[in-house]
């Protein structure tokens, strides 16, 4: 069973994402703080990370950068979940090493589709 790690500072969002993924049969870990999330991610890399961009303290971009710098986190697929819909934002995160991007507000079905697609793709390969 694939293990998905959800990082978002909004408890409601974490809750929603966890509910959707659990309903689809994924094992879910969550964290609402960027720093502790990074530590846990590196300690035990999951199969996929759902990452919010706008977080206090350590935001999504920074977390992604630090994650990719560590050999243990460099290959974990990351799906960015953000309210930013701008082309530049999306391009920026993909350049930082995110594997895919989903804009808020999204449909649960779309989210599940993207998660499955990323997990099916060979490790380290970027999905559209």
């Amino acid at each position, binding site marked *: 069973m694939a293990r998905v790690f959800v990082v978002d500072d909004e408890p409601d969002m974490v809750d929603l994402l966890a509910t959707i993924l659990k309903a689809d049969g994924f094992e879910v870990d969550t964290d609402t703080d960027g720093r502790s999330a990074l530590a846990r991610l590196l300690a035990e890399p999951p199969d996929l990370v759902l990452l919010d961009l706008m977080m206090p303290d350590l935001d999504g971009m920074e977390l992604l950068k630090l994650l990719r710098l560590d050999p243990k986190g460099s290959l974990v697929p990351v799906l960015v979940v953000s*309210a930013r819909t701008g082309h530049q934002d999306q391009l920026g995160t993909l350049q930082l090493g995110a594997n895919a991007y989903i804009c808020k507000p999204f*449909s649960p079905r779309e989210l599940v589709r993207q998660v499955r697609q990323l997990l099916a793709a060979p490790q380290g390969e970027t999905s559209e």
Partner: protein
Amino acid sequence: MKRGRLQTRIARHIAFAVVVSLVLSALVLVVFRHRSVQRNMEQSARTYASLVSKPLAGLTGYLGSSGRGILDQQVAALRELNQDVTRLEIVDVRGDIVLRSESGTVNVYGNGVDPPTITDGKILRAITRLDSTAVRVTEPDGTHVYRVVAPVVQQWGGHMYSLVGTFSYERVDRQFRSSLWLSALIIVVGLGLTHWVSVTLAGGIMQGVERLRKGAQRLSEGKLDERVFVSSRDEIEELAEVFNAMADELQNTIRRLREANRELETLDQTKADMVANVSHELKTPLTALRGYLELMSDGGLGTIPGEAQRAVMVCRKNVQRLSLRVEELVQLSHLERFTSLDAAREEIALRSLLEGIVETFRPRVEARGIDLTLRLNQALPLLESNGEQIERVFLNILDNAVKFTPAGGTILIIAEPYEHEGRDGVLVRVRDSGVGIPREALVRIFDRFHQVDPSSRRRYGGMGLGLSLVRNIVEAHRGAVWAESEEGVGATFVVWLPIIEKTRREPIAGQPSVRLDSDGADRHGVEEA
């Protein structure tokens, strides 16, 4: 050749003035000098004649051959007294010449058979009257001479003679010629001097002008702290002061503009950040709502009673609507910043973009039995624009068309190459069979918050931002958008987008572009596209 032209002009003026005054004064001087020398010569000739007449007449006593030696000696001595004398004649009262001294020889005519006589009437008259006179005469050989008649009246009567002296102007003329040459030489030397002086003077004037020119040039090259210092105490100095004042003003204005611009940039950034935050703040709760509502209606959270199911559907629909409006607001606030095409540009294949949009609308139109058709010309060029924005344009237009087309209606999208106002581009027309738009509203529908019928907000949803967004985006791409409609029959929205920079075709070999009237009236002619 631009440089130094003014200097040459000034120098030429100075030189001209100097040369003219030099020549004039030299001429005047030479002529006056000549006259006075001539008068002097004549004066001394007359004095000489009256002084010499008596002793010379007295020599007639030596006319005998024995006294010739003395006579010749005396005459030569008397002649020495004047440089200009060429001939001396002693003439009796009848006009017969008694003695003539000419070019070193003395001839004496006494009791001769036919002595030479004076023929000149005026001279002869003076001689016969024993008057003194002086005349300027032109000799038969063309030379000018001065002839003086001085009477010799002896106290005791008896012999009455007159002296006729002939004086040459040659010495005077020689002096005149030499002073002419001297003046010419002075003029030539003066000319050279004048040239040097005038160029130097003009250079002095030009120094200030040249500094001003260099200063202005550097200023125009953007060296705003350039100033010019001239201390010529004239208009050029004033001009330099005015120039410096102008440069100060320019520098200040540009500094102020730069500061203002920086402030605006900061404000713009702040605004962009704020929009991003607001959209985040709005979208996150919307996401939670949408997610849970979808999970509920899909039965992911257990079965819900029928009545509640309907309520969940209504919530879902309204959350959906709210999401669209938030997205519109964010887009619009972004767009206000675009006065030109500074958005990220990329190559867009309109074909796949339109096909993608039609696919997203497919479920919605099929649910209402609307026939949605896409007709693409084979030769659609690639556009270089912001793909996200162009997608937004057609999403909004199609959303509008679907909204206003009744169940069972038709929507037709036609895209083809089209030349508009001399520029190549692509024309996309979205024609629906809806309620249409009143003629007077055709232009205003693109205004922000405008809706044809205030009640349509309730009926069809939306804040009237969709078409205003469309216009903003299209105009930012230097394109054109307009609507055509016949009320009750349907409406056609026309978008024209220019091909920017490169003109390239999509891989499929193209047909020639179809030229339409600008009102797009021959819509039947492109059905095969």
